[in-house]
């Protein structure tokens, strides 16, 4: 995976999100752009909000989906990369 298992992120203070059913729509105050997350992306977003590590996020996805772990790691990587690139999540610095 691109991100180490013990990596934590925090939500950007510029990101405002609303969840409707299993979807999340995010408005980035900085770029004035909008983003949409599907069910998997929404779960990841919520876990980041609860300060889960990347490893804990993957574990949670494994317990929710009947899909091989390697596939979920790949999906998680892709979503985290998109969120990171868009500036919607920021690395959480560990003390």
């Amino acid at each position, binding site marked *: 995976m691109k991100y180490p298992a013990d990596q934590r992120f925090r939500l950007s203070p510029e990101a405002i999100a*609303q969840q409707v059913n299993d979807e999340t729509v995010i408005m980035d105050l900085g770029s*004035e752009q909008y983003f949409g*997350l599907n069910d998997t992306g929404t779960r990841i977003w919520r876990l980041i909000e609860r300060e889960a590590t990347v490893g804990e996020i993957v574990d949670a996805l494994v317990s929710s989906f009947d899909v091989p772990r390697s596939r979920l790691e790949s999906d998680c990587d892709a979503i985290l990369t998109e969120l990171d690139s868009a500036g919607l999540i920021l690395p959480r610095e560990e003390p």
Partner: protein
Amino acid sequence: MSYGHPADHRNMLLDARRNGFYRNAIRQAIDANSVVMDLGAGLGVLGFIALDEGAAHVVMVEPTPVLEAARLLARDLGVEDRVTFVQKQIERVPAGRFEQEIDVIVSVFTGNFLLGEDLLPSLFDARDRFLKPSGVMLPDRAIMEVAPVDAPTLYAETVESWTGETAGFDVSRFREYAANSVAPADPARHDLTMLAEPAPLKELDFATTATADCDATATVDATRDGTCHGLLGWFQIRLGDAWLSTAPDAPRTHWVPLFLPFSAPVAVKAGDRLDLAVTRPQHGEWTWRFSRGPDHRRQSTFLSRPMSQAGLRLRSPGYRPLVNQDGRALGEALTLFDGGHTAEEIAQRLRATYPGQFSSERIALDAVKSWVARYGDGAED
């Protein structure tokens, strides 16, 4: 806000204070040769003031049929030959439409808290394409101002009323939508107490600015103890050499301050340092933030209604659209706008072709009539 009926213009027409400021500014700006554009003319009041003050000619630009009421008044006043009526959005008026260059643009494109209704971009378009280089804009500058506000009755009305049971069930889940919605405040009816001196947030120079937006912060010191229910925003505009303020404690005009509430009020003590921020991109969402020590609030009209990914996708510039059945019906109707078919004939044909879209002849005819009003030749000047 709809302005298609004369009654919609009542508050503006009867705003004597506003009219007086505009009249004074117009008198300063014009001479006997002046050509004035009354942009967003409505009933034409400001244009008629310009003629009364001696302007040579007035161009009234107004997208709604209410302009016809202005034409009737022009006839009553005997000035119809000194007015050009253009029923169009200014962006759709071709360059070179008018014989003369415009010396003065008069407009009332300032919504509550200045940016409401997103009319200012149209003013900038008119400025760029029709105003002569030495021309005058009335107003030509604006300042947005903000203050933290103790507003118990307004808060109860706009936010707290969504708490608890209504019609036998708990509607509290809708409260967050309300707490992220902006609302007009009425100083005559709501008890509004500013908890700090108003802070200037953003100044716009209408003569030069390209966008009507706000992304500004202010730090104020609370001047009294109280409960901060949200922020109150308003503006002042410069008309000639005078500033017209829409502040809650200023003499009343038809404008009202805008209330930007918090999801939960914050107790404030005199001397507290308060950080305020307001963001509003052009055509975008209002977002407002507040900090008092460890207490933070962030609200946004983005959260004032549920939004789906599907709806978001449709609004994306990168989206590749597919036409739906309503669109197909519209497309077919437009091919019949050739002067050879009545609206009724078109409606009958659409009903036969798209029975799922038009459950009755009346619904089909209503749809065709609305399209004729929008897309039919002769619907505008």
